[in-house]
């Protein structure tokens, strides 16, 4: 069983996002380790890009600092390997924009990422229509043909598909049906960042997706507090928290302590959501 599948045994799961290299590389590794060991079930590990057009100001700022600190794709993958060496055994999913992956060499990128211990990929500027190049790179990772059209490596290290509130029904059905790993449901139209309240139509949106999806469904964008996480956790299989995580930890004098506290508070809230 893949790490991702394993992680969804106890739902709803808590998925924080944190960019490697922020506020510096060593601290970011310590922070991610602390998140993993204090309640995160899966971590979205951020790769930085100069032009993060799906991100709000907080993540823009953090990834900008990471770049100024000299983060690269190569160093990011080495950091993932270091996390595995430290005994982090939850799934780690890389979240990053497409161009740095292309510049690294796509096949080499997915190969090196999986070697380093990455379990999946989220690429916000790669919709279904443009995903083939990426999935075929995943397909070349090797693995044996076992009667399933997908090679085991692809199944085990999926490119996560996103769904948005604007996605029309037919398209939603197609994406949901083909989704691997889990579905990333964007809860609001907009960029990443906290919102005052959870969008009203979320329950209905989740119900619509569930009709077609066999993969677990995680909700992200706009969730900022344990209370909101709890509310969403009652409806979804996982809760993704990015901006609030970056803000709480990045703004702290003691980022590792802040990470522990942050993970515990959300973990607790989601335990309550599970009832």
């Amino acid at each position: 069983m893949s790490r991702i599948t394993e992680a969804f045994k106890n739902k709803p799961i808590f998925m924080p996002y944190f960019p490697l290299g922020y506020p510096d590389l060593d601290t970011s590794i310590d922070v991610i380790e602390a998140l993993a060991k204090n309640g995160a079930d899966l971590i979205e590990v951020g790769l930085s890009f100069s032009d993060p057009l799906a991100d709000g100001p907080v993540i823009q700022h953090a990834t900008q600092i990471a770049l100024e600190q000299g983060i690269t794709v190569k160093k990011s993958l080495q950091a993932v390997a270091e996390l595995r060496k430290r005994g982090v055994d939850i799934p780690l999913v890389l979240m990053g924009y497409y161009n740095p992956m292309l510049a690294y060499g796509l096949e080499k990128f997915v190969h090196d990422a999986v070697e380093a211990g990455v379990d999946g990929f989220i690429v916000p500027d790669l919709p279904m229509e443009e995903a083939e190049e990426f999935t075929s790179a995943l397909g070349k990772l090797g693995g044996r043909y076992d009667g399933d059209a997908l090679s085991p490596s692809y199944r085990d290290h999926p490119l996560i598909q996103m769904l948005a509130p604007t996605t029309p029904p037919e398209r939603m059905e197609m994406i949901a049906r083909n989704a691997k790993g889990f579905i990333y449901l964007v809860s609001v139209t907009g960029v990443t960042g906290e919102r005052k309240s959870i969008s009203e139509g979320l329950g209905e949106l989740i119900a619509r997706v569930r009709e077609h999806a066999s993969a677990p469904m995680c909700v992200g964008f706009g969730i900022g507090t344990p209370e909101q996480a709890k509310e969403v956790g009652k409806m979804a299989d996982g809760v993704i928290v990015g901006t609030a995580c970056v803000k709480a930890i990045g703004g702290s004098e003691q980022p590792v302590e802040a990470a522990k506290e942050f993970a515990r508070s959300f973990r607790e809230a989601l335990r309550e959501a599970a009832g």
Partner: protein
Amino acid sequence: MTLLPTKFGKYGGQFVPETLMPALMELEEAFVSAKADVEFQREFNKLMASFVGRPTPLTYAKRLSEKLGGAQIYLKREDLAHTGAHKINNALGQALLVKRMGKKRVVAETGAGQHGVASATAAALLGLDCVVYMGLVDIARQEPNVFRMKLLGAEVRPVDSGTKTLKDAINEAIRDWVTNVRDTHYLLGSALGPHPYPTMVREFQSVIGREAREQIMMEVGRLPDTVIACVGGGSNAIGVFSGFVDDEQVELIGVEAGGSGIESGKHAARFGDPSRGRVGVIHGTRTYVLQDEDGQIAETHSVSAGLDYAAVGPEHALLRDTERAFYTSATDEEALNAFQTLCHTEGIIPALESSHAVAEVIKRAPRMRKDEIILVNLSGRGDKDLNTVIKEIGV
């Protein structure tokens, strides 16, 4: 499934967040149906004539031709279009589509301010709300256009992120669009970005090439030997090229911003710098992009804000690969010299962007025979650049 091809060879595509995909499909549908709709075409053509002042003239540059002593030079006068540049063709076309889609608000990016002014103008004419994103660096160097946009009722939002130029203005416009996509259209100003923009913008700008072809045939009875245009994102170039691309004997030349020189690293020559200009994905499209080894988008430099951009429209990437068009560059200094030359010989103050095309004319014309013809697209007028020019060369 899209109605039109999304790619130019391997370039182009739709590399955008899922939230925007439905908006791109809706836009493509509106564009395809409008294109087939006689009524829409009639309305567009009417505005082009009665509001923009088309057709723009073709001017024989007699004194410049004599001075250079080679090819005969003709200027396609997009600087005489209303608002002072070719940008209005596309802005009005898209604004009409916005009405058709029933949206009420447009966001736009601008570098030199020409597209921002064109968008603000189209929005005022058609009763739309308009927000223009502009980098702080560009606001400082294109101040007159900032005032014009405000006078036309647009809100100009300064962009303080990244390099504070066109690239960052596009990022912010896209972020606004993602957030307000249900009632907002992104009025993208060049032949770049995700499909259908490169195709749609070319279509609205193809009026330049159609007119120019007809005018040169009327004037001299034959096609030009060479067509020259500056290339930032590449909308004026693709517009004028489209009129001649099927005439294989016509040489097509695009001129990128050479900034302080290719070797200085301070430029915006995506095709001209093979070490940093590599195929990548930015702002929704696959094309040549100036980037570092790690795939971070490079900082660019040009004296002209409108050419100061790290990527180029995907169709230009294909034209370059197939060698249907050739791309070269002009430095800041060459552009400034060309600017003055055109002022003195023809009584025309060109935009600094267009001055890059004129700089190539100055290099090329003396090497050509007197019975050969160069047609250059004078994409805009230079009033907006007076502050920059005064600073650079004094008066």
